């Protein structure tokens, strides 16, 4: 089941429970963004807003792709979300997208693809809430 292409993940996170056992957002990644902004909170909110806008379209794409069983469409969305979500610290979600991406690349038509896809879409809702909370706190 765990065929994630993400080689960098620590072993502790390798099996991901349905509701995401780890933190939804990695505080360290957000700190990196704050630091990069040089104390300018605008920068962090700019990045988060950029992500939310971009991710919404991608998640919709992913959803539509899953409905119509269009592997390529799901693949592209998962690939894009994998990297941009990592930047804003949505580590679990990013990992889930990586897993989904590898399912899409595999030749066999598996149940896992649909299941992982649904999990990703559901997880995104949590990410969205958490990031909006970050925005609210700025």
């Amino acid at each position: 089941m765990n065929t994630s292409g993400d080689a960098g993940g620590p072993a502790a996170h390798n099996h991901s429970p349905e509701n995401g056992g780890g933190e939804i957002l990695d505080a360290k990644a957000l700190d990196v963004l704050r630091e990069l902004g040089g104390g300018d909170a605008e920068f962090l909110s700019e990045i988060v807003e950029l992500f939310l806008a971009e991710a919404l379209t991608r998640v919709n794409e992913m959803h539509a792709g899953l409905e119509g069983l269009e592997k390529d469409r799901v693949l592209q969305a998962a690939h894009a979300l994998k990297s941009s979500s990592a930047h804003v610290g949505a580590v679990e979600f990013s990992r889930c997208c990586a897993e989904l991406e590898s399912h899409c690349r595999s030749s066999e038509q598996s149940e896992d693809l649909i299941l992982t896809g649904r999990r990703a879409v559901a997880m995104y809702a949590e990410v969205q809430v958490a990031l909006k909370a970050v925005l609210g706190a700025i």
Partner: protein
Amino acid sequence: MQKRAIPVEFEELKSSGTLPSPAGVGIKILEITRTDEFSADDMGQAIMSDSSLTGRILELANSADRAGQEPITTVSAAIMRLGATTVRNLALAFSVISERDDGSCKAFNYPLYWSGSLARAVAAKSLAQHVPGVSSEEGYVAGLLAEVGVLALATVHSEPYAKVLLETRGQPMSVVLAAENATFDIDHATICYCMMLDWGLPESFASAVESFNLDRLSSKEAAELDSLSDLLRFADAISSAMLFTATTPPRRINEVGEQIEMLQQVLEYSDADLDRLLGQISGEWSRWGERLDISTCDVSFSSIREAIARGREAFKKEVELQTGGAIRCESVVADTIVTTTDAVEDARGLGSERIKVLAVDDDPVALRLLVATLRKQGFDVTFAKNGSEAMRISMREGPDIIVADQEMPEMSGLELTRALRRSKRGSSMYIVLLTGARAEDLLVTAFESGVDDFIQKPFDADFLLARLRAGMRIVGLQRRIEEDRRTILRQLADKNNFNRRLKMLSLTDLLTEVPNRRHAMERVESEWKSANRRGTQFAVVMVDIDHFKAVNDTHGHDVGDRVLKSTAQVMSSTLRGEDQVARLGGEEFLIIARGAVLEEARVLAERVRIVVEENIVEADGYRGSVTVSLGVAAFDQGFTGVSEMMKAADDAVYQAKNLGRNQVRGARESSSCADEPHKRRLSA
């Protein structure tokens, strides 16, 4: 304070003749102002002889912290306002700067030294208003020259000092001073003191600079700003903060942070006040940098504060790790003055142009982060959202480095690389590809396509910068190669141009500016060959000015020369484009008529005879005309070679002379004189 004796070690340094020193006008000013009772007028005159020096002094006298006063426009007004001694010291300091060059001490970063000195000068100038008895101009001079002792050692003892600097790198300043004493029997603090005195600056000034060098940044319990050396210490902290790089050690950042905090307390400044002060210093730094041709960089003080906070945090951790908090930071580390190649290559590009980076990613989040990371390092960054936009920008702006995402719709990073490598401009860019985790499959293809390096996404800022350093080195090399190539091309062009001119000169008769004998004979040879090979025709007309010797003898050589020149010109203007007249020597010319058979050449010669006869020459009271005798020989007469043909034309001229001059004779024409062709002309 008692004036100390100048140590013999300093005299030795001085006798090397290579100590940094004022030059040009600076030396003159030193001479004029040797004694206390120098004439301010004389000094003003000396300064005014150097317009850029005058401009700098006026700018300083009119600068913002003297706002509200009438602007001054003359050196004497500056002397009135600032005092003769201050103007003198300014003039000296500027003249030391204008003499600067990048010396040979390998461990010493000369551009960074001057950048730092200028930043310190500008900061000291701004802070001086808070120090009783120190004018802003004095602050400026002190800041500028505060570390001149270090420069002196790097200049005079470049090799051994490089060793000292490398060995003490990262060590507290006391260690550096001790190492200097061990190696040279003198340290840079003492040298500073001696140089100040040597340049006639007051003892109090020299001592302040010396004590600044001895206990710079030493953490004082009670913060105060009431002397020139306090002023220098704080100004130095500000200048160090403006030059922070990625490689500045946390310990150093911590010290600078402490000083800036202390300064804030002393001035009772809020964060906003401090930002304003520092912003103003940074602005002035750039302006003066431009004026004095010293590199500066854009700094935002919010980012400096951030860097300080981060550095201090890191330092605290370091200390906790090492000794559980027992380390006390002992004065300053040597990194201010010793900067390694890392700092030289810092993206702020001190001493060279900023490095241009193009960031390319279709993911807006990743792109924004990439741009922010690169900008923070001082790169000149442009960005593109896809491959084709990147291609357009590359061709237009010629970035040095491109950091591009591999996976982009339509045009991937790899395709972009291939497209760039096909263009001349793109062939020298340093291209880094951002790839996902599964890049291994790509490696070989990518390197073959011309990718220089890979970085995995999501990228880590420090890692990215470390990899870009390699790129920067290559960009630096490429810039140098390109410069060399241009120089070589220019030299080559100069050489070709020179050779062409030389050749032309060697084939031209200098007086008449028509081709000379050498050129004429080459041309006859080549006409002969072409006539033989292709059956073309040509003829030569030998022309000799009649009674030329009489013109010279009667009217002088100047008139003779004018006659030659005028005759050459009038003949030249009579000829058809493909015919040519040359001067064979003396008053003898040759016309080469291309394509002409004997009869045609005779007609041409007759025309020449007439225009020369009608040509009035006027020179130095002489007014008159000369006539010519002409002998024609044509290829169609069947000569066996060039020399026979030339000889025949020459003989024909003799005949014309003998028949009464001012006439044309064809070669081998029978005439009454034909039986005595060897008869020399005795009175041509």
